[in-house]
């Protein structure tokens, strides 16, 4: 696999020349790569953001312990120290029923005003807000707390988190199947394009063999052609990714500020995805040309 600098220019010229010579096949292959990478890009952006949001939520999971109304101050203190003594608990915070009502009113915004009626006769409980050291321990700790005296009930966002992760997993699987299919289509088209090039060049290849060109010398232009097809296919997806993610961030950020939904920042996220897309494009191209070269170029 000797790649001499003095012949690099020649291989590049040859590869570019045949891109032009089979213009239509080249365009078809590039389009296949483009479609594939657009999908891969969209998929990656959605998946990585969903994952990010899911883990943000997961980290925010807290257990709300509703204190029995019959508990006096003494019982309440006892409960607090019992909660604090639990091994897996990080911290415990008290929140009075008035504070809880205020939170509730706030979370409903304008419509929350109607809850103000309850200010005279608050139906809510005083609560302890318990945070575990590890998010995964939440269900176990919650069960344990439920059994304690003076605990009316416990609430935590178990269902929400579970559902979110389920959505992420299902869409990931669907996406992966779809993308694998597209990757193979793109590879097949590229390998066909290269096959046509090899066929158009069979005379040259024959003479190259006769005068003693090395096998790698003969193969290089075809590898480069595949590589170019793949890399060119990545141009549009990367442009689309950069432009659209930038405007997505600009448009969405004011709306979602302060909520648990959070987009990954433009940099370095977009550059990482661009690099991944380019890499996939190039690999598809090289793989496609490898298939043809092995099959049709008996060198």
């Amino acid at each position, binding site marked *: 696999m000797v790649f001499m600098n003095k012949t690099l220019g020649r291989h590049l010229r040859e590869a570019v020349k045949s891109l032009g010579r089979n213009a239509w096949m080249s365009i078809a292959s590039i389009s296949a790569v483009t479609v594939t990478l657009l999908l891969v890009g969209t998929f990656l952006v959605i998946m990585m953001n969903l994952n990010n949001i899911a883990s943000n939520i997961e980290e925010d999971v807290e257990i709300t312990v509703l204190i029995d109304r019959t508990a006096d101050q003494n019982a309440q203190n006892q409960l607090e120290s019992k909660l604090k003594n639990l091994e897996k608990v990080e911290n415990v915070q008290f929140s009075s029923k008035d504070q809880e009502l205020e939170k509730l009113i706030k979370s409903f915004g304008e419509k929350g005003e109607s809850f103000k009626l309850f200010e005279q006769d608050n139906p809510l409980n005083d609560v302890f807000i318990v945070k575990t050291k590890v998010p995964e321990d939440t269900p176990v700790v919650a069960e344990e707390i439920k059994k304690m005296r003076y605990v009316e009930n416990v609430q935590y966002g178990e269902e929400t988190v579970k559902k979110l992760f389920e959505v992420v997993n299902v869409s990931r699987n669907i996406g992966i199947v779809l993308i694998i299919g597209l990757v193979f289509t793109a590879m097949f088209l590229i390998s066909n394009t290269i096959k046509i090039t090899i066929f158009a060049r069979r005379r040259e290849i024959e003479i190259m063999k*006769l005068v*003693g060109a090395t096998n790698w010398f003969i193969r290089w232009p075809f590898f480069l052609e595949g590589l170019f097809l793949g890399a060119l296919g990545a141009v549009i997806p990367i442009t689309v990714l950069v432009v659209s993610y930038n405007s997505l961030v600009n448009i969405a950020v004011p709306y979602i500020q302060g909520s648990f939904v959070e987009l990954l920042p433009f940099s370095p996220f977009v550059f990482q995805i661009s690099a991944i897309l380019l890499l996939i494009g190039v690999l598809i191209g090289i793989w496609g040309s490898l298939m043809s070269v092995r099959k049709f170029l008996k060198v």
Partner: protein
Amino acid sequence: MIEMKDVYKTYSNGVLAINGISIKINQGEFVYIVGPSGAGKSTFIKLMYREEKPTKGSIVINGIQLENLKEKEVPYLRRNIGVVFQDFKLLPKLTVYENVAFALEVIGENPKNIKKKVLNVLDLVQLKHKARSFPDELSGGEQQRVSIARSIVNNPPVIIADEPTGNLDPETSWEIMRLLEEINNRGTTVLMATHNKVIVNTIRKRVITIEDGKIVRDEARGEYGLYE
């Protein structure tokens, strides 16, 4: 220079093309290979530049042992052998100059030397004035001279010509023969497979006659045998 010992070649379809050939050809010789069609001349030639592998026996060309030559070493063997064909095998989209330069470019010759070498060899075949022409603008004889130029531009010690005059009229054939003799006079070994009785009987050289895959005659100043 060229040495074959008990060489046999059976094709995968069972045809026995070479049936025990042993031969020695020295550096600087001019040798005709003659024989009826299907006698094994082409196979004999293909064995030398490793287009075909012998089924049995040993072949040495310019010190290179062919029978255990690795695939990736074949290109380096071929740089020792110039090959000329009846149908010229020129690239139609390249000029005369580019066709000859092509042979040097693809073996990684330093670009600085290419121009000088190509012009030298075009001078030898008297086609310097046609350097910018395309093959289809040339006569058959001129095309064959380009193909000969291409085969010798790398200065190989041997050139093998498979019916080089097969497509040419008698007048042009003599032209090609004079050129091959001139190349031979510079010390290059020339092997030429031919059906041209007049040439073989006029320009008298060593003649190896092959029939049914065997050498039936090998004369220092031979004559064309009696074939139809």
